[in-house]
């Protein structure tokens, strides 16, 4: 049986690694074999972060090959485009619209791609792309830090796995004092996508 392949991408400091960890564990909790592989840039903060997650009856390599990723969860538009060649033609992408320009952009050496360029690049590659402003929504909820769980909530709405399974794993991964706000963020994320479907 075919594996389900995910890519979670973003910028160091956004909490992408944790959301990938949750996603991998949800895969296991839902009865699959599950593997994950992270590539972190050199910088602790503000480098590109890429996590591969794969679910299936039996998963071999912990990373997907180009053209085989089914779901892209992107915390940042530029990072979404960077990974586009990994997507298959049936892929679904959820892209946080909040931009984090690299230093080369903020110091005026190179340009950040325009919204049209980004949309064109992704629409050419994936079957369905959801653009959501997860960072803004997280801020509205009271903490920019919960953007990772909010995006996971958005992704979860595309699966028939019970939200309870997701929430159990989230509870395990987030510190207890931030549990409530993270669970609210998860719910908010689910609603963001279901409204669009």
């Amino acid at each position: 049986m075919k594996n389900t392949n995910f890519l979670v991408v973003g910028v160091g400091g956004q909490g992408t690694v944790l959301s990938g960890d949750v996603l991998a564990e949800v895969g296991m909790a839902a009865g699959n074999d599950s593997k994950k592989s992270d590539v972190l840039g050199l910088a602790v903060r503000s480098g590109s972060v890429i996590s591969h997650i794969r679910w299936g009856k039996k998963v071999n390599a912990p990373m997907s090959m180009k053209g085989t990723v089914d779901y892209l969860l992107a915390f940042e538009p530029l990072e979404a485009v960077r990974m586009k060649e990994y997507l298959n033609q049936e892929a679904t992408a959820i892209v946080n619209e909040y931009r984090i320009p690299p230093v080369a952009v903020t110091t005026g050496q190179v340009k950040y791609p325009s919204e049209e360029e980004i949309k064109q690049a992704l629409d050419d590659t994936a079957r369905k792309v959801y653009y959501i402003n997860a960072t803004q929504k997280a801020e509205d909820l009271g903490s920019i830090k919960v953007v990772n769980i909010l995006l996971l909530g958005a992704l979860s709405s595309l699966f028939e796995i019970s939200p309870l399974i997701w929430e159990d794993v989230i509870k395990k991964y987030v510190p207890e004092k931030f549990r409530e706000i993270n669970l609210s963020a998860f719910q908010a994320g689910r609603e963001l996508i279901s409204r669009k479907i």
Partner: protein
Amino acid sequence: MKAIFSGNEAIARGAFEAGVQIALGYPGTPSSEIIKTIAEEYGKDIYTEWSTNEKVAMDAGAGAAYSGRRCLVTTKQVGVNVLSDSLMYAVYTGLEAALVVVTADDPGLFSSQNEQDNRWYARLSKIPLLEPADSQEAKDFVVLAAELSEKFDTPVLIRTVMRTSHSKSVVNLGTRPLTPDKVELFPRNPEKYNCTASNARNMHPRVEQRLLDLAEYAEEAAFNRVEWKDRSLGIITSGVIYTYVSDVFPEASVLKLGMTNPLPGKMIKEFADGVEKLVVIEELDPVLEEQICAMGIDVLGKEVFPPCFELLPDDIKRYSIKAGLLRGDDSPAQGIEKTGKEALQELPLRSPVFCAGCPHRSTFYLLNKMKLPVAGDIGCYNLGTLPPFRAQHTMGAMGASIGVLHGMSLAGLPENRVCTIGDSTFFHSGMAPLVNMVHNQSRGVVILMDNSITAMTGHQDHPGVDWSVTRDRPAQRIKIEPLVRAIGVKKVLVVDAFNIKEVEAGLKECLDYEGPSVLITRGECVFVSKYPQPSYHVDLEECVACHLCFKLGCPAIGLSTEKNPKNNKFKSHIEPTLCTGCDICAQVCPTCAIQPPAEKKDGE
């Protein structure tokens, strides 16, 4: 019970299930999470320590194993260079209880100065080498390594790569065996444990015999196995590459080696005889290929799969198609390449930079300005190599900078010179070369960048702090300044790394000194700092868009949307979510446009 673990977490769990009682290492990506996880999860049962360097860890591991405690030593690949001197004697002596060494290699150079293949160390030192493919094996192989270590009386090497250490997969958990509460008196057995030449003469034949015994054992052991499928192609592989091969060649027959030193010769010959075409797929060096060739077997290897960088599934596929081992037509990746538009091929990269608030920034700003030749070392400060600073002109190994500085002095350079070294790196291997500089009356400035932590590898302790492994475990702090003075350095200055003028004055004073000098630039890493300040801001009325603040390479400083009409450049902007208020940029701004937040009045 099941859990999902990274390879490093699985090794930590394996140490628990193997009855390891002592775990030692020096931090280094991609190995650092092993000791951390043991301390956090199994600290009640296993003693952990970040030793001063890898050799110290290895010697202590040998001493503990001689005394009857099962011991684990962890390091990244280049750390094995440091501990190899001690590994070599432990191979001759053997031990009383298990001694397992984990090397986490870094194909692809994600965070290392080289791509060395540490499988050679197993061949050089003649010890068993286990290569786990995933987290389950990572855990199981630690238990297995401990058994082999005691059964064959030898240290055992486990080699992971970044992909095994940092990938997560499902692990079935086992239990911890009974471990000795107390140990016996130390074995007074110099014939076994003292490698004086007359004893070592008797040890060497035992090492050779042990290797033969291990090779025989490897023929029958379950960790080496053949998966017979289509016999037109046979692939020999090991470690995480096995999982890639399973994806790229689902139909091929595979010999999966769990132990790659010594090799099971008979098993390999039988496999070779059973397939039409034989290929070895191994990352980095042709360690397996050369040995298989030496058995007189016709095998393809490095001529198809080159020795540089990782061999990810996409790479294996690409090279295999090129060599005709795989048909290219049904490749899903190719479909996408045909349809995807070529828009946005050149995307802006996220180059690594010093964090906002980093104490190293001031020093590299000055080194760039003063155009001094700089011998560099390993740590976050190596980012001073990159633009806008470009002010670390050499870097090669831990602690090397001070020796290189001495060599630059010996050569009689026509200019003054400095080196940089961090606090943890200084303790690791900077003391001996500083002693050498003092003793031999060398000249040069050692800039000792003391940020009170081992920052780059994830904020571990070192002998200069008062805690050990976890924050709640107290440790004796060794102060750097008196240590450097005790070594005999007469010119020692301590300056505030967040005060550019102070660093500059100190640096000039040290440069004028005709002898070895040490400038300690002190400032806490922003990750451990107890004093984060509110964000600064740019007063656009005052900013003249001179862009001098850009010379600091701070990720919090960018362009605003307002231009200075005189030079037609955009003025600066400080991103409030990133700025930590370190004040460095305010010190370089010639128009005082960069300002701290206004003092709040009472009641506001």
